[in-house]
Every structure is written in C-alpha cells, then in structure tokens.
C-alpha cells in the first residue's frame, strides 16, 4: 500500500505540470483564433462600432493577452474558473450542470464496450482461429469502422422514428416533472441510443485486445501446466487465460477515457445530449475562451484522475508492476 501511495504522490505532482501545460497551450491556441467572442456574438445581431467597442470593453477583451492569461491563472489558483460570456454565468456552474450527463454517458458507454467487448473477446479467444473468433473479430472491426455520427443517425431512424421504441434525443423527457425511480428510468431510456452508438464503436478495441491477450496466454507455461493438471477447458479459460489477458485492458480503459470524451462531442450533437462535448463545440463557435479552457481543464482532470485510479488498481492487482514502470 505504501508503494501505491508513493506512486500516487509522484503522479499527482506530474499531473499538476501536465495541467499547467494544457491550460497555457489551450489559451495560446485560442488566442490565435481569428475573431473573438464579440465577433461571434454580433453574427446574430449586427451593430455599429460604438456597440462593438462597448462589448469588447465589458467582456475584458480590450486587455492584452498576457494580462488576460495572468488574470486567468491567478483566478484559477483560487479555484475560480471565471465568467462565461456565452451564458453570463460562472463557468463552474455551467460545467457542473453538464458534467453529470457526460459522466453518465461516458461511464455507460465504457461499461458497455468494456463489458461486452471483453466478454465477447473471451468467447472468441476461447477457441482461437475458429469461425466465431473470426466472425466476432471482423464484425467488431466493421463496427469500429462505422463513423459514430452515421451509426447514430441510422439508430435514430430505426428505433426512434420507425419503431418508436425509444426517444430521438435529449437526456430526459422535457419538463416532465418526474422524480425518483421514474426519472431514473426516463433517463435510462434516453441513454440507450447514444450509449449504444458510442459504446459499440469502442467494443472492437476491447474485444480484439482480449482475444489477442488470450491467444498469448494460451502459450504460457502456467496454462500448459493447468492443462497438464487436467483442469476443465472452461475453468482454464476463465480462471487462467482470461484473467491474465484482462490486465492490459484495464490500462486501455485509462488511455481510452480521453478518446471517449472526444467521441462524445459528435454523439452529443447527434442525440441532443446536453453534455460537455456539445458545450465545448459551442464554446469554440462562440470564442468563449475561458469556457473552453474550463472544459478542457475539467476533462483533463477527469482523465488524470481516471488514469491515477487505473494505475492504483493495476499496482494493487498485479504485484509485479513497480511504481516506475507504471508511470512511463
């Protein structure tokens, strides 16, 4: 456990540097953008020079870049993410409102792709080279090759418009006044399609990794030994082969979390899910620099935390892993 703590401390210090790089890098990138928040705003209103100057002044855009970056970092030090010009509200509130939605969407999609992917991977890898192995591995790959937005649109047409089994989008029935279990069920129904669209894409990843790991494990000594001991095939598959193949998948879980967050941008837009991904898209379009910085920062923290947890889990699960190795 002390080793795990040491690892934790080391990673935490490294993470702070990482986050600093992320913030400054994103700030500079956004500053390079043609057009600012005022340009984005006047698209829908028009206005004369006086009005435009007024707005720039009110939104603090007439200050130099360096001043704004310094102000931002100083506020950040006090855990203040600033004020969004798009929403005229504190960014912390705007993000906190969207975060649960994205977490639920990502969590469910990860659970789906990891759970179903590794289960099918075990099923396929139990008989390497068999028809079912080939079929599952190619089939999942084909799913991976389908653009997520396209899968989403097709799912909507089939299940929401034609069959009407599921709602076409959103996170819950609007202004329904549902509470408690009814609301949970309502949200779950709304999540089925977006979670499927997002989860099925990443299914292939876990399936193929599991399968490859199992193919490797079949050749290992302890499996041969288990076979020699006359253990049943089912038992060998589950207790020895699959268990060993599972560890790299856990690492993958951490690495994928950032990608999943990116993939949800498109899915949230197709399914009108009010999550962080859509918020980010809006922030870019509106040139709401502090808002986008806040989103990037929060998602970076999220990814860092997930990876920390994965590392910890790994260190606990597999005693062979040293702290130095896991951090590379």
């Amino acid at each position, binding site marked *: 456990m002390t080793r795990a703590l040491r690892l934790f401390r080391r990673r935490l210090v490294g993470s702070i540097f990482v986050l600093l790089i992320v913030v400054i890098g994103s700030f500079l990138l956004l500053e390079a953008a043609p057009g600012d928040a005022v340009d984005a705003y*006047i698209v*829908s209103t028009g206005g004369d020079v006086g009005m435009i100057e007024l707005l720039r002044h009110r939104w603090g855009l007439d200050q130099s870049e360096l001043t704004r970056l310094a102000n931002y970092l100083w506020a950040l030090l006090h855990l203040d993410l600033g004020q969004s010009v798009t929403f005229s509200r504190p960014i912390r509130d705007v993000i906190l409102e969207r975060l649960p939605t994205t977490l639920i969407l990502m969590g469910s999609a990860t659970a789906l792709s990891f759970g179903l992917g590794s289960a099918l991977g075990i099923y396929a890898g139990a008989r390497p080279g068999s028809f079912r192995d080939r079929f599952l591995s190619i089939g999942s790959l084909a799913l991976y090759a389908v653009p997520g937005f396209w899968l989403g*649109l097709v799912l909507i047409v089939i299940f929401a*418009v034609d069959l009407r089994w599921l709602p076409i989008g959103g996170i819950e029935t609007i202004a329904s006044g549902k509470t408690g279990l009814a609301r949970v069920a309502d949200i779950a129904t709304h999540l089925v399609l977006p979670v499927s669209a997002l989860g099925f894409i990443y299914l292939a990843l876990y399936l193929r990794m599991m399968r490859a790991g199992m193919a490797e494990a079949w050749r290992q000594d302890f499996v041969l030994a288990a076979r020699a001991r006359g253990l049943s095939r089912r038992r060998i598959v589950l207790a020895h082969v699959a268990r060993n193949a599972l560890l790299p998948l856990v690492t993958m879980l951490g690495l994928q979390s950032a990608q999943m967050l990116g993939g949800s941008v498109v899915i949230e837009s197709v399914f009108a899910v009010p999550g962080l991904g859509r918020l980010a898209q809006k922030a870019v379009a509106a040139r709401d620099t502090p808002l986008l910085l806040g989103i990037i920062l929060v998602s970076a923290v999220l990814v860092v935390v997930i990876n920390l947890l994965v590392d910890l889990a790994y260190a606990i699960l597999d005693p062979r892993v040293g702290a130095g190795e896991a951090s590379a």
Partner: protein
Amino acid sequence: MSELTISRRGLLAGSALLLASTALPTIGLAQTPKKGGRLVLAADSEPRNLNPAIVASNGVFFISSKIVETLAEASFDGKDGLQPRLALSWDGAADGLSVTFKLRDGVKWHDRKPFTSADVAFSALQIWKPLQNLGRTVFKDLEAVDTPDELTAIFKFAKPTPFQLIRNALPALSSVVPKHLYEVGKIEDNPANNAPVGTGPFKFAEYKAGQYYRLTRNDAYWGKDEPYLDEIVYQVLPDRTSAAAALEAEEIQLAAFSAVPLADLDRISKVPGLKVITKGYEGLTYQLVVEINHRRKELADLKVRQAIAHAIDKDFVVKTIFLGYAATATGPVPKNDPQFYTADVETYPFDVAKANALLDEAGYKRTDDGKRFSLKLLPAPYFNETKQFGDYLRQALAAIGIEAEIVNNDAAAHIKAIYTDHAFDLAVGPPVFRGDPAISTTILVQSGIPDGVPFSNQGGYKNAELDALIAKASETLDTSARTDLYKEFQKKVAADLPLINVAEWSFISVARDTVGNIANNPRWAVSNWADTYLAG
C-alpha cells in the same frame, strides 16, 4: 407534384398567400380554437441574451416575442402593414420632429405592476437608442419622450425623421421592457435579460441550457380569452436532421425557421399528420447576395461585375439550392416588399457567352490553361444554402474562366475576415431586409462606414452619387417622395453592382395538423402566438 409546381410558381410571383401541397386540405377544415395544451417545438440555437429590446434579432424574438411585446406588430391587412399591440395608434407630425403613441389601457406586467407610458419612454431612451443593435441607427436622433399622461408617449426627434421609417421599424425595434425592473443597476447585467419579464401572453418559466426553454400562460393577459395555449416548450435540437425526426416521432409539434432541411420537405409533406407551411415569414426576408471587394483591381471594373452577374443562373439557384422555396432577385429590395420594390431596373439574364465577352472586353483574356484570374470566395456559414451557393458560384465562375478558391470559416472567423480584415474577394452573405431600406439595407452599399461594422459595406465601394441619394432619402419626410428615392436607389445599385443580389428567401414551418392559427401574420414565427392553439 402538380400542387407543388403551382405553389412554386406562386412564390416566384412574390405571392404572400402560399401553402405547399399537404397544407391545402387543412384550410378547408376550419378547426375551432381550443384552450389548453402544451406546444413543443424545435429550437436550434440558444441566444445568450433574451432581451429583445437590446438584441433585436430573429433568434431572440423567436422565444422572447411571446413574453415581451412591441408597440405594434406586422399584419397582412392592417393599415401600413401594421396591427396594434401595446400602442393603439401612432401619429407622426408633419415636420418629422415628433411621433405620438396612444397606449393600450389595462395592460399589466407579468409581476402585476401596471404598464404605462413611463415604461415606453424608459425603453426608448435608455435601451433602444443607446444599446439596441438596430435602434442605435434608427433612433439616433431621438431626443426625448414626453409622457403627458400614463397612456400617451410622444417621441421627440432632434432632426426630422421620416415617420414611414419609424412605422416600419415598430415590429422589430420597439420591444417594451418594465422600467421598474431595469432602472436599478446596469441594464446589461439585469437578471431579466436572461429571464425576461414583459406584458406578453406567456411568462418565462425556466431555461435548462442545452435542453429547453419553457413558457407558461399569462392568465392576466390583456387579449380577450387569450392565449389559448397553457405552455410553450422550445426543445433544443442542435443537429439539423433531428427536427424532422422529432416531428415524425411526434415528440415535437412544430419546427419553424426551416429547421427541417429544404431537401427533406418533399418527403415530409407526404407524412400523414404533418403540414408544410411557407407563409408567415413575409416580413423576414433574407437576401442571397454576392459581396464584392472593390479593392481587387479586377472587381473594381464594372464589366467584370456584370460578367459575374451574367454567369449566375438565378433560376438554377432558386430551383436547385432552394428547391423552389425562394424567388430570384433583381435588386436590393425584395420583390415581396409592398412599399418600395421596383422591377424597373437593369437585369442580368444568365448568359455565359456574354459574360465571357465582357471579360474579354475588360482585358482579362484567358491564359493557356483557360483561366483569366483567381479569386478567394468566402461563403457565409450561417445557412446551408449560403454554403451550397458558394459551391455553385465556384462552378459558375469556372465556366467563365475565373478560378475561385472557397475559404470556409466558422461564423466568428467569417465576420472578422470580411468586415474587419477585408480578407476576401467575393463573399456570399445573407443580409436581412427589415421592411425599410434605411434599417439595414442602404448600409450595404453606403461608403464611409468604419471597419468592423458587420453586415455593412466593407468592400471598399464608393459612389458619391449613391451616397447623396441615401442621405437625401434618410431626411425626406414625404412618404411617396421617399419611396421614389428608394426606387431610384434600387436602379442605381442594379446598374453599378456594388454587390449582386441573387435570390431572396424566407423560411418554412412544418407542423402537426393539430396546430392552429399558424402563419397568420408576416412575422408569425417571431410574433406573440396569443391565438395559436392545439386542436384535438
């Protein structure tokens, strides 16, 4: 199909009364208005400020016009195209220095305080004139608003201001907000900007960012028995294909502002229970315009501009890009405008041979690879149609030996590139005609506008004669003399082509058959919906 052809021809003729195929049967049914119910409709954007007195734009009106009312609303058959709202009558003095409004009695704000002339005076002087995007131009000479009694407001102007202009500006520019809520603190930071309070038939209830806006019935509304609906819910649907799917799945009952893509209308008009309505946007005409940077030496040559005008097949644009839901344009005032439009202008029929000849004459011969010169073309990203027209224009220019490279930007970068940096040769823009050329049309060709003003002449065009004409029209008080000047203005623009008007279009609504009293005024989508109802 034949019905559709008829309706398309109808639209081309600029007819106001126009309904596409499946809408026809429902007219005959004459449902009786029914009370109650929740209307759910699609919204594709979420405005950051919901105060229509500050931000006079269709995106804001779409939601706020149900909550905050204007002095008058546009009308198909009212005098001067207007019907009373908060004002019962309006009267301009002969010297153009004052306008008197008689206000409606017994109107209450949503917080039960009475509405009076003080609210009108406050809105006009503290908000429309100094803060409103359009009001800053139209009300620039407004000096004072006298309130001799609670129901009379007299606008006093420092310089003669045409009454016709003020009248035409009423539907979009005269949203009245409560003085008692706005007189404390900074107007721009007022919480009512995000949760508006007005006199309208609906009260603002809640907004869930990224999900919906909800409005509820105002039981104390001044209109007798109005409103019919209990609730209006705007469901935010960011993807362009969701509105059609949501309509078909019966999750929403209405999609306004062409939320259903034009290309999908033919199919959706055949879905039982849905109707396609092209009426109700006559007062919100958008113009498809090729903006020209006259700093480019080739484009400063009138012959080149004429060649480009001849190279554009306007009928193709209307037929293929707008699928018939538009009309070809002749000049800077749209055909469906009842007051100012004139057809008596120079026209540029589609004629590639003539275009090529003009370019040869101008001295831009084709080189060995068949090209004359290259241009940068920036289509505005706000509409699918402006982008598609950009694709088409690139092909049309290729046919006359001009190579155009398309530069796609998002909205913010586009605005900056054109109106501040002037980093374009040709651009495709969708300016809005707001019922009077002085509100937002003359600014498209007038010279001397500072850099950075959006939707204005930033192409470096300068024509002293045209400037003088615009200046004269802005201070001409007599309605018919003023109208004549704007007809002259159209002729001059069409002859000298500071920009090329290609087409003009409005929006389409798709609704369930059960939604009644749709499209009964020229700005229906952005009007108050007091009489809209849900049958059965």
